[in-house]
């Protein structure tokens, strides 16, 4: 394991890591079982520090909370019922995704209540442990690809880009992953190793003011690098974005950035997803 990264476990459990470090530490933790175990123990320890600060809450708080829950719909479980086998631990991503504030509101917790693993839908040559997952979802994946093709026709102004996007989506080795975005909506990624490209599109993301833009990141051992900005297309979808993942890239991130984009993420990611596995 990477000793330097590993020493961040204490600061991580204390929520003392700056946002960028959180992304990279979680990226590391997703692949480092001993780190994840250590963080769990340290988080439990930090929780005791919290309990030690217990203080009687104002009596009015109970009434307010109870009144509020009467009006708040509960979230359904995040487990994907079509996934009959748990993903191997090493394939799990960090839980950070739900830990992200939906537009303005600060997140729930996320670290422990991880969202489901993405709908990993390899279209071909899937490893055995994924086969049952794939069987359940392959139809959905095809539908997604078709839908994306339709979106591309509507949304892509540049014919050449459209052609390339369709080539990626139609490639025989294309793999599709769909991920929930914490601020709302879904991100769909289609990666074709033979084409060396990945198409990223979204549906249902909250509209942003003109001063802000959705930016996609590719995250590898050297950190996060800009992969492009998502443009609002017609309706609630964004124009398919062609990206070029490099060997070693592990994850795809999505953040809200100032108009024009940033060189490095400046806000909490609203999605961090594993790259469709090659």
């Amino acid at each position, binding site marked *: 394991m990477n000793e330097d990264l590993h020493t961040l476990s204490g*600061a991580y459990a204390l929520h003392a890591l*700056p946002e960028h470090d959180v992304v990279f530490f979680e990226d590391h933790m997703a692949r480092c079982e001993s780190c994840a175990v250590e963080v769990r123990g340290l988080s439990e320890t*930090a929780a*005791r*520090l919290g309990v030690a600060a217990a203080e009687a809450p104002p009596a009015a*708080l109970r009434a307010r909370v109870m009144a509020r829950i009467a009006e708040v719909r*509960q*979230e359904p479980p995040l487990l994907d019922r079509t996934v009959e086998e748990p993903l191997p631990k090493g394939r799990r991503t960090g839980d950070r995704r*739900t830990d992200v504030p939906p537009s303005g509101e600060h997140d729930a917790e996320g670290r*422990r209540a991880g969202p489901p693993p993405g709908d990993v839908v390899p279209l071909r040559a899937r490893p055995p442990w994924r086969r049952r997952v794939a069987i359940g979802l392959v139809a959905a994946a095809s539908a997604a690809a078709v839908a994306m093709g339709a979106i591309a026709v509507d949304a892509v102004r540049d014919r050449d880009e459209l052609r390339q996007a369709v080539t990626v989506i139609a490639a025989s080795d294309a793999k599709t992953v769909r991920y929930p975005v914490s601020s709302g909506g879904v991100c769909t990624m289609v990666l074709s190793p033979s084409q060396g490209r990945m198409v990223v599109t979204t549906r249902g993301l909250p509209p942003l003011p003109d001063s802000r833009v959705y930016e996609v990141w590719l995250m590898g051992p050297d950190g996060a690098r800009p992969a492009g900005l998502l443009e609002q297309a017609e309706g609630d979808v964004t124009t398919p974005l062609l990206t070029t993942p490099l060997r070693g890239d592990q994850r795809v991130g999505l953040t809200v950035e100032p108009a024009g984009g940033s060189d490095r993420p400046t806000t909490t990611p609203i999605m961090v997803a594993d790259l469709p596995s090659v």
Partner: protein
Amino acid sequence: MRTEREPAGAPVPGEEPGLEELLSQVALGHEQAFDRVYDLLAGPVFGLARRVVRDRAQAEEVAQEVLVEVWRTASRYDRTRGSALSWVMTMAHRRSVDRVRSAQASTAREERVSRMSGEVPYDEVSETVTTRLEGERVRRCLGGLTDLQRQAVTLAYYGGYSYPEVAGLLRVPLGTVKTRMRDGLVRLRDCMGVER
């Protein structure tokens, strides 16, 4: 035995069998179960928010948000990934820290940190922590840390400071702070007998 394991005056809901079960009932929409969860967790959640954000009204807001979030997302609690207590307290701490950090423009905060360098504000923090801690066990375990470990852990956890800020406050290198946070927490973990 059990009383020795529990901080005086502060319930340790995670050790009462049932918080996990209660949450699974809450996930099914049982308001009575949530009422019980509230009994167990409102004090710790509110107290932690108070400790971090200080302002009572804001701490109440944070506590309310967290407790409603427990109701809303109970179905997403996964007991294989840690205790229910840890799930909720992590959420409470995260929200408290977010509240503190978003309240300050980052530049203002940096200025404040550099201004505070050398002024030993941590004495005040850690003393407050140690004298006000209701948990005997936690206090004893904190007492078993080196000064630097204790300051690093308490400034981050109760003060809501990031580790670069803590390094600035304590005037020690970043790497040292990272390491002290980790080995300090490890020592606390072992002292408190937290299951791994």
